[in-house]
């Protein structure tokens, strides 16, 4: 018997023009939790796709229990007992939990009728054994994200998988749910199941894993025992240079009120109730105010209402002393609002435009860039080159790169460069670091703090608890379209925030 249940030795996978995996070795011991750490584009997904049979490697071998195996497709992977919980769940919304679990692995009787009763008993037994609480008869669309994830995990257990891959499992969970998941994972490991845990969150790695394998730019950096390392070392391995993990910022010096929101109400497009209900708050110059909450609690609509992308049905918004409740998007921008949008592909960029064209998306009409309606191409080029240099936006062809071909991180940097350079008194930043890696996050956080220190007001919306705690000067928690609490990041804990975010705790009216 080999020491390792799965070995991926010297895996090489190429795509046209790029080596996604270059001589990567990953060895998974039986009964261990093995974290796979790396920035975006480091090759984590490619490596897992190779293991799952979606890609064939150009070189290298995969061994199961010491024997070389060939995994040609996901069915082969399942046959070897490999299961995966994808970052975006693969569930059918209108099916029940039970139907989703047995889908693809149904046991049938003589005439092809489903043997649902047996399946149900098996699922209930599994759910009991591992403490995975689910309602087997509920439809997936009616259950919480946390329960959906438990359904995905049950799917793997139902198929008797011994090797469990978790792809960024905590991105959608509340702090409490994350803790639960960590316990469940530890339970699996005790049972003798082996777990591969893909993540870029260092806290979770430190909390749960036994060993960590780090990848960088398609190359294998090393494997370390979690007990013998620390967050700083891991992040340096991942990025390839010393990274400053704790954001250094001076205490805020709040000045006059820049943005005043009174009783803002925005209808929902999904349900009949208001997505944002009677929300009031102020943002002052020189402070970062963060709206924290679980995704889908009205953050998007709140920002749409503030920026004019959506019409608010009630409430008053005052920006720099000017009532902009009824103003158009352009008028709001001119009144002093810059906006880093949540969806950089939908709102932030015209993807078929070049980088330079995107960098002047609001400015093309300024006299500097046009003369009687004719664009001054030299000026645009010069301006774009300046921004690209100042904000370290990397792309294949500089200003003339089509933004669609740029990486997500650099697309985001381009948007941030454009919005920060507008130098408006209010900066609205919605999930500015979503999907970005540690190096890019560090850079963007510093930019946002610099904005604050310039005396601008910053309204931050974030789902990442670490970002909320580290970056903001004041936190408002939004739950089901209402502000349920205001806390000081220096005095609160992630646990307390989690209680507010899940609606379990609520401050009195004075908190509004």
């Amino acid at each position: 018997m080999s020491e390792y249940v799965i070995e991926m030795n010297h895996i090489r996978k190429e795509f046209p023009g790029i080596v996604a995996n270059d001589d990567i070795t990953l060895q998974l011991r039986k009964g261990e939790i093995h974290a796979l750490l790396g920035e975006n584009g480091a090759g984590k997904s490619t490596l897992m796709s190779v293991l799952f049979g979606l890609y064939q490697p150009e070189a290298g071998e995969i061994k199961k229990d010491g024997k070389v195996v060939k995994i040609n497709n996901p069915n082969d992977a399942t046959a070897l007992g490999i299961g995966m919980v994808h970052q975006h769940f693969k569930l059918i919304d209108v099916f029940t939990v039970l139907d989703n679990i047995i889908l693809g692995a149904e046991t049938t009787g003589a005439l092809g009728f489903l043997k649902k009763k047996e399946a149900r008993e098996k699922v209930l037994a599994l759910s009991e054994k591992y403490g995975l609480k689910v309602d087997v008869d509920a439809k997936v669309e009616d259950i919480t994200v946390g329960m959906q994830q438990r359904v995905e995990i049950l799917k793997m257990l139902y198929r008797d998988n011994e090797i469990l891959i978790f792809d960024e499992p905590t991105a959608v969970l509340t702090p409490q749910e994350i803790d639960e998941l960590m316990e469940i994972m530890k339970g699996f490991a005790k049972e003798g199941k082996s777990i591969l845990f893909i993540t870029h969150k260092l806290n979770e790695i430190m909390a749960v894993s036994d060993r960590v394998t780090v990848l960088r730019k398609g190359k294998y950096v090393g494997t370390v025992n979690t007990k013998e390392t620390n967050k700083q070392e891991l992040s340096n391995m991942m990025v390839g240079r010393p990274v400053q993990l704790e954001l250094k910022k001076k205490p805020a010096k709040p000045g006059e009120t820049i943005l005043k929101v009174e009783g803002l109400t925005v209808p929902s497009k999904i349900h009949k109730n208001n997505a944002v209900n009677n929300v009031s708050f102020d943002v002052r110059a020189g402070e970062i105010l963060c709206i924290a909450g679980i995704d889908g609690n009205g953050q998007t609509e709140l920002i749409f209402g503030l920026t004019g992308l959506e019409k608010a049905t009630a409430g008053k918004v005052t920006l720099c002393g000017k009532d902009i409740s009824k103003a158009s998007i352009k008028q709001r921008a001119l009144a002093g609002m810059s906006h880093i949008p949540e969806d950089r592909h939908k709102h932030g960029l015209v993807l078929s435009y070049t980088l330079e064209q995107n960098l002047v998306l609001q400015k093309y009409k300024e006299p500097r860039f046009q003369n009687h309606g004719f664009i001054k191409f030299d000026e645009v080029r010069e301006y774009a080159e300046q921004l690209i240099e100042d904000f370290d936006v990397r792309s294949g062809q500089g200003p003339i790169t089509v933004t669609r071909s740029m990486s997500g991180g650099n697309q985001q940097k381009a948007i941030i460069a454009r919005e920060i350079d507008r130098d408006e008194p209010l900066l609205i930043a919605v999930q500015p670091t979503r999907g970005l890696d540690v190096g890019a996050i560090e850079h963007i956080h510093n930019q946002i703090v610099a904005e604050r220190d310039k005396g601008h007001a910053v309204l931050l919306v974030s789902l990442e608890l670490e970002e909320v705690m580290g970056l903001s000067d004041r936190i408002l928690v939004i739950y089901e379209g209402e502000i349920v609490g205001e806390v000081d990041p220096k005095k609160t804990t992630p646990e307390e925030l989690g209680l507010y975010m899940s609606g379990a705790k609520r401050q009195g009216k004075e908190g509004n």
Partner: protein
Amino acid sequence: MPRKDPVTGKLKWYKSEGAVAVYSALISILIGMAVGAVIVIIVGLSKSNISSSGIVEGIKLVFLGVFSTGRDSAGQLVFGFNGVNMGNMLFRAVPLIMTGLSVAIAFKTGLFNIGAAGQYLMGTMGTLSVGLWLGWTGCPKAIAWLCAFLVGVLLGALWGAIPGIFKAFLNINEVITCIMTNWIAANLVTWWFDAHEMFKNSAEGGKVGYIIPLKNVGVVTPKLLMDKLFAGSQANGGFWIAVLIAIAMWIMMTKTTFGYELRACGANRHAAKYAGINDKKNIILSMAIAGALAAAGASLYFLSGNTEFYWSTYQKLPAEGFNGIPVALLAANHPIGVIFSGIFMSMLNISGIQLKYLTAYNEYIADIIIAVIVYLSAFSMLIKMMLSKRIKHDHGNVNAEPAVSAAPADDAEAPAEIVKKETKKGGQK
């Protein structure tokens, strides 16, 4: 140098996007012509009155019809410069260029203008009515010409704006409204001329259902050298006007803030809105411009003076309206390219006429070839995609270090791949 990237370097001109567009257009034209030649052979073999030499003549005319100068005394086909054919080719190209521009500009702004036929009819109605009426009142011919042209264009713009308004405010697909406005225009124009007997040509005996040509009242486009270059043909200054409009459209789309806005709305309406651009206004404007261009094609065509309009159109939409789509596709929606693809389509038309007069074939062969090319022009997008993939692929391997830009693209694609394969797997089960 700011325009050159030190790492990847720029694509050579013959590998640029524009060059690829030209190659793909040429490939689809060649395939279309080859299919046309095959049809000529099949028809020739199946008809007893066409000999093998007749088939060869047919093929020659398909490719070189515009250079045909008839037959010599020995009965052989003679080719050379034919001013009449050339001139007529340019003359007939004018409406195709304009409707092609109409479709291309709409495409560039993310809209599919299938309503060029209706806009063309509205332009026809406006130009003929105003031209004839002002011609009779005896107002100066130049002013009458200008008014006739402008009213035609304006009517087309209004007609184009209707689908734009529906799209902007109610988010109704412009294709559906365009098809409806086409037929409304067809009936409206018929009704208008039916109700106004004075426009009908009864003076010239034997002509039923035609409108009086504008030359009868002297409101015609000046020749502007065209009569010197192509003596005996119908060519006139309208061609120069069409070329100027095409150039103006190119400048508008690529060099001005207005074009920047229009294209931004077309490429990503949400991002345009986010940036404070009035997306609704721009959608209506680009449809109005498209309508104006199609109508201008009709105005220029009928202001040549000789052309006659058959007023009872309620059962038939003008082919120029739909031929604008292949013209735009062949040109990859480039306004300057539209000039050439418009001339090319018109050349095929001339070839058809030559076939009819000089051989036992009828002119419908040319229509079949046009139809094949229309189909293939849709493929030209596919060919273009294949070509640019090849070029990009070569490029990626030549340069050792595109990793900066390529790496994340891979990461973004990998999950999509997984989803695709998963679905496939699910489907098989």
